């Protein structure tokens, strides 16, 4: 176990939580009206996408990781 693996695990687990929460909040807010709520919905969508990106980076699907020094 080195630091990079802990970081990745944290990113994956927390990424799942944040993505689920963001999309759930988006689902709950879907029918809200008003300018600020439309903006909030857009922001939540992007937030969820960002969490998924971080999750994928943690899984080493996207992004770059240097070879682990032993």
């Amino acid at each position: 176990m080195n630091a990079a693996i802990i970081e990745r695990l944290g990113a994956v687990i927390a990424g799942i939580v944040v993505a689920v929460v963001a999309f759930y909040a988006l689902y709950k807010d879907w029918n809200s009206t008003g300018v600020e709520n439309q903006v909030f919905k857009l922001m939540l969508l992007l937030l969820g996408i960002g969490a998924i990106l971080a999750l994928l980076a943690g899984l080493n699907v996207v992004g770059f990781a240097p070879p682990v020094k032993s």
Partner: protein
Amino acid sequence: MAVASLAPDAGEVDQLYIETRELRLQGFLFFLISDCVLFSSFIFAYLYMRNSGQGWPPPGVQRLDVAFAAWNSVVLFGSGATMHYALENFKYGHFMRYMWFLLATIVLGVMFLGGQAYEYNHLIFGEHVTWAGSGIFGASFFTLTGMHGFHVFIGVCYLTVLVLQSAAGVYTRGKYFGITAGTLYWHFVDVIWVVLFSIFYLL
């Protein structure tokens, strides 16, 4: 605490408040748009220089390691989610839950800033990548993330003021534009980081 002030207060919200709130909301959104243009300009500059035909990454610079940044990003995105629930709870009158979510947001924001400091420290002293000395990589990376970090710092200050004001009972269930604006700003800062994270670490 100031839970009493969260009783439904019909009559206190007058027409003047509704109209000025509308103006402030509109003005705040326009401010965010122009701030977004500021970031976009630097992002454009980064992408332009990156594609100007001298190869990427520039000589002497490693590609950035994504592991720590992924964790740090999730911290910031999580703070966006807690901020969202802070506002939701305030709207529905759960004052204490609002305060806890707000404090959690501040803690996560500070954690993100600490992570940024760790990352800078690692880059500058570990890999000798500096603002002025590493060509266009150092220029755009430190300028953009530094600007973003400054925005996060301002956001943390704003949220701290919100905590103090809420404890003093400034906001009521009818008049809470300050909290809405804070939420908008914090979401904005998060979303900017989605873009920065993608273009610096994933691209």
